[in-house]
């Protein structure tokens, strides 16, 4: 039994503790906003925050999240539903096409802005290059991050 907090809620999970956090949030907790794209830390679709740090949940065993705070895309907006500045910017720039990579993109962008309130192009490139968007929305993602930075 592994105990952790997910989006502010205490959870007890009874599963092989080697199971990646990705599959735990998706299949044990039903939080399917965190996506599977590669399973090998190569695409960023599965990005979540553990104690505020962005991690690739597909290669993070549940045991590593024991006793920690996990935030998924479902927990990024305020409890009253108010969107995060990054989410607002995503709407403003109509960033998503299919949207499948976007949970991970948003999680990486939120983490970047927390570290660096005013990122340069190079900062964005290096923070976001682990997140693949096969629909090719990189130019919009970059613009949206800058908008969110201004709003933040």
């Amino acid at each position, binding site marked *: 039994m592994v105990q952790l907090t997910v989006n502010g809620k205490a959870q007890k999970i009874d599963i*092989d503790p080697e199971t990646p956090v990705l599959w735990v949030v998706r299949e044990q907790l039903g939080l*399917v906003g965190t*996506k599977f794209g590669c399973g090998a830390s190569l695409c960023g679709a599965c990005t979540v925050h553990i104690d505020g740090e962005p991690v690739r949940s597909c290669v993070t065993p549940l045991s590593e999240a024991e006793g920690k705070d996990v935030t998924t895309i479902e927990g990024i907006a305020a409890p009253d539903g108010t969107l995060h500045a990054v989410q607002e910017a995503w709407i403003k720039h109509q960033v998503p*096409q299919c*949207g499948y990579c976007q949970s991970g993109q948003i999680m990486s962008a939120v983490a970047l802005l927390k570290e660096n309130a005013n990122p340069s192009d190079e900062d964005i490139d290096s923070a976001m290059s682990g997140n693949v968007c096969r629909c090719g929305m990189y130019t919009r993602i970059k613009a949206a991050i800058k908008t969110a930075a201004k709003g933040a």
Partner: protein
Amino acid sequence: MFMHLAQTAKPKIETANKPLLNLSRRGFVGAGTGLALAVTLGACSQNKPETLAQAAAPIPDNSNIDIGPLVLISIAADGRTQITNPRSEMGQQVITTVAQMIADELDVPWDDLFIKQAVGDKKYGDQNTDGSTSVRNHFDRFRMAGASMRQMLTQAAANEWGVDISECTSELGVITHSSGKTLTYGDVSEAAGKLDVPAEDTVTLKTRSQWRYIGKDKPSYTISDVIRGKGTFGIDVRVPDMLYAVIARPPALFGKVKSLDDTAALAVPGVTQVVKMKEPEGEAPGFQQLGGVAVIATDTWAAIQGREALKIEWDAGPHKNYNSKTYAQELMATARQPGENKFKRGDVTKALSSAETMISADYYAAHLSQSPMEPPAATAQWTGDNVEIWACTQNPQAAQSTVAQICGVPDENVTVHVTLLGGGFGRKSKPDFVVEAALLAREVGKPVKVTWTREDDIKHGYFHSVSAQHMKGGLDKDGNVTAVLHRTVFPSINSTFGPSDQGSDFELSLGATDNPWNVPNMAVEVGKANSHIRIGWLRSVANVYHVFANQSFAAELAHAAGKDPKAFLMDIIGPDRIIDFSKDGVTYPNYGASLDEHPVDTKRLKAVLDKAATMAKWGRDVPKGHGLGIAVHRSFLAYVATAIEVAVDADGNISFPGIWSAVDAGTVVSPDNTKSQIEGGTLFGISNALYGEITATNGAVDQSNFPDWRVMRMAEAPHVFETHIMESEAPPAGVGEPGTPPAAPALANAIFAATGQRLRAMPLLGQNDRLDMSKVGEG
């Protein structure tokens, strides 16, 4: 007088999984009776509006708006309007676009719309979301459906007032009589439901200036879900009591399981069962399952672990000798020999031999994988002989009929719910993964979700065809082109479905036999090629390699003639004219559209070329190591020109200071989304051109995940991307695919301008994703 309840309700997307369906029903309980317009979209042909069949049916008294798959539009008594979207949403914002077309003619407030995703059903007509067709083939009938409904509602109001319909107008859900009295659509929806659907010739569509939503930017319907992690994709579907499966598929096509030891797999906690898959039949894979061994478990991770623990010995099967390296050499050798003529103008052989200057070039493009961000996934649940399926499919009707056929049940026993698609690019048109889920769920006796891992997706796809091309061109002493020969050799998509040893006329019409050059002697020839892996279509299909070759070759000819490539391109396209390829012996399918409505117009082609050049400030001085390249092509009835500026550093690293595209897609329903598609399509093309290469050894694909199947990432994306949409009142053209074809040649031409290095083989980059700088300066 406004009676709408729904102003408070945000537009809601209903994806196809069960819980959401229930939610939507609740949304309409107590909504009262109303009009449900049933529309047969018919066995679709081209742009013709289909007959609006089936008299409008009143919504039954129990107020359940979900009255069956046939309903395209329904209006409840409280004014809420439900539109059923029959097309698959994979990022092209088709939900929003379909709503724009229908709601404009219906003339209802945008916020009153409620969208439901259609299941797969032939009664909707063509649901195959492929070929960039959702707007170009359905623009008239979606609008006609909305306009017919509006007319019925107006007629119902006129009847209630006892006046002639000509005295009534309608706007934003309210019908107004000339005296000033009003009724809402909801007020009259029940009465309207009893009227006959008007004959099409009595229905007037809006004029362009009256359009409220068409041609305007409406925010994506899915975006509010997507940014909260809420939309339901195929991989997200959950049904009670379900099990999870992954499959070990034969490494080479039509390979078989020789021996299996599943002891260790069954010992993995969570693994419940190991199932030998039914083997595919015949010699053509079609949409069949691939065979192999499935591991069933209580969660996906356990299934993946279980699969790793399987010990399988494979019988390699009939394609075990396929080695893509040798095969590529064979293709190239074939391309250097005469093939079957498919386009003949003048006498190419004679003109080439008498040319002042003759150049020739060989082009090669490797197999590619669509690799949509969401790998294929499907869930199936049997009840008796009926199966319910949830899948990220581009083609729910093909999924339905293929499952029915392979499982031996009638089509009507198979219900296919369409989820959101995390990208498609042609991969999800092929329902092999849906068949796997149906077979396994029946075998296991419980609902089963099959998830493809990324390795599965890359190793067992329907690959974009590999190709070799040989081009020859002749110039006279003034540098005018007198002759062009284009030979192309590639295994055909047809080989996936039956015997085929040569590229089809359809594939040739994508970039080869539709060459618009005004050159007196031209020929296109095709050579023989067999296939050894599944060949499938990928965004813009054969245009990818054909346009890479001939738009690169245009720049090579310009170089040989000592002319500016853009001016040269304008010249060889020649005077303004409508091209009739039948004069050159070509049966030209024109993307399934009529040539009357969608002629091949060189004026429009040159206009986008000019525009892209202007946007890029063509002819300007660029910094050292930079270069500008340009290419233009008409595909899916749209004209797109793209200019690319590359910067190449001393180590051969490439970056993109800017990309400029001009698109003429006729009438555009959704401008910002069109731009987004051109951006995405262009980057998809560049990604494939720079890095894309699927190879095979002994019949098995060598690549497995994103490190060896390389795709474009943030740091490699352009710093500036500008798209211009040409003003046009021509009928709508496709926008999902046309951005892709010009990308690769514009890039190769830019690299040539920057370095003097002419790259003729895709992928363009070599070791470490860099240009081979030892070749710089080699033409």
